[in-house]
């Protein structure tokens, strides 16, 4: 099929809500170049909610997975040595030594320093 004449290119738009939040995909838009895409991104998707940063990415520059490659994403449930699940038995062991297990919830609660130190 003959390619139609168009000056539009497809851009995917990503933005983050606050300086500490991760970039999140918003939507796609059409624009003649990245500068216009940036203007359109704000017009189209950021009329209300707070926004700390914006990325526009030309679709041509995105390498996605093919249908066949997606099939290979299926995980086998044999990697518990990589996860805390594989070490869950420690909880019982520590109880034997009259100690609490330092689990994920406990460790991540140390953010910003422990007040009781």
């Amino acid at each position, binding site marked *: *099929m003959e390619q*139609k*004449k*168009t*000056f539009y290119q497809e851009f995917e738009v990503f933005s983050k809500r606050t300086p500490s939040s991760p970039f999140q995909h918003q*939507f*796609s*838009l*059409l624009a*003649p170049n990245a500068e216009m895409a940036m203007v359109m991104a704000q*017009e*189209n*998707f950021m*009329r*209300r909610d707070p926004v700390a940063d914006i990325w526009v990415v030309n679709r041509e520059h995105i390498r*996605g997975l093919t*249908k*066949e490659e997606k*099939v*290979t994403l299926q995980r086998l449930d044999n990697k518990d040595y990589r996860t805390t699940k594989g070490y869950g038995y420690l909880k019982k062991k520590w109880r034997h030594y009259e100690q609490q297990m330092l689990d994920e919830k406990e460790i991540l609660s140390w953010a910003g320093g422990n007040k009781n130190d």
Partner: protein
Amino acid sequence: MIIENILAINITIKYNNVKYTLYEKGGINVSTLEKDFTEQEELEKFVARIEAGDKIEADDWMPEEYRVALIKLISQHGISEIMGALPEKEWVPKAPSLRRKLGIMAKVQDEMGHGQLLLRVAEDLLKPYGKDRGDLMQDLFNGDLKFHNVFHMATNTWADAGMIGWLVDGAAIITQTNMLGASYGPYARALHRICAEEVFHAQHGEAIIMALAEGTEEQKQMIQESLNDWWEALLMFFGPASSTTTGTSKQDVTIKYKIRTSTNEELRQSFFSKYIPRILSLGLTIPDPTLHFDEEQQLWVYQQPDWNKFKQIIRNNGPRSQARLNLRRVSYETNAWVLDALSAAVN
């Protein structure tokens, strides 16, 4: 099992339509697995995914019937957002205060933004046919693509602007939230964005109606007249209960593919349950003496709108159909030279 090719480090095995390529490159295993699915296998996988609540994406395999149903639905939805901005933009210069003017301008901008989102979703689906939003606009002008029946009506007073925000957007919220879980991922994501803004639209409309309802006798009369004018259009909004009225209906195929869950009539009943008590609480009278809730059937009983009038409207013979199409056509044709000039520079 057919062993197609054996090299020292490159083996391709074909078994049961699955092609396994096993090879090593620079000591790294880069084996791949490919399967040549038949049309029937693809369809079975597709149906299974939809049944499991999985989302279909633009580059996924989908049956033609699904793609065509989505294109019809989403291009009509997108074009209707743009055509729906037209009756409202008429009220931007006539809004009674600066705050109201800013409010309705923001709403008109949102509607155009919704059109942009939906046309993007439609364009990605149209790719195999080599079509884009320019073709959709031509289809609109030719009468091949319809815009929503409610946007063929005239707006006569400021109360109509309020009524559109409150009850037309209210009706739109009911049909659009019904599709938030749509099996087609890009449409569901567009609807999530749209519905969040529709909440503002509905409240913007409520604020206009509330001010008039608490105003002078003349203002109260203005909203009553507006309700009288719009009631039939609000009933028609959800479409006929079955395809027997107009010969076709999208509801069966969209329910089958889990794009929506409820029928037109269920959506209309849900609109009644949510809005009739609110309309009455403002001291308004619904222009249908037969309207009541039947406890036994657990259904609202109401006077059917004139479905012949509906058939005329969807053939672009409604009160403002041609005027609004012309407005769009003139602006598109007047500005066409810009698109031409820029395309020539690119190619």
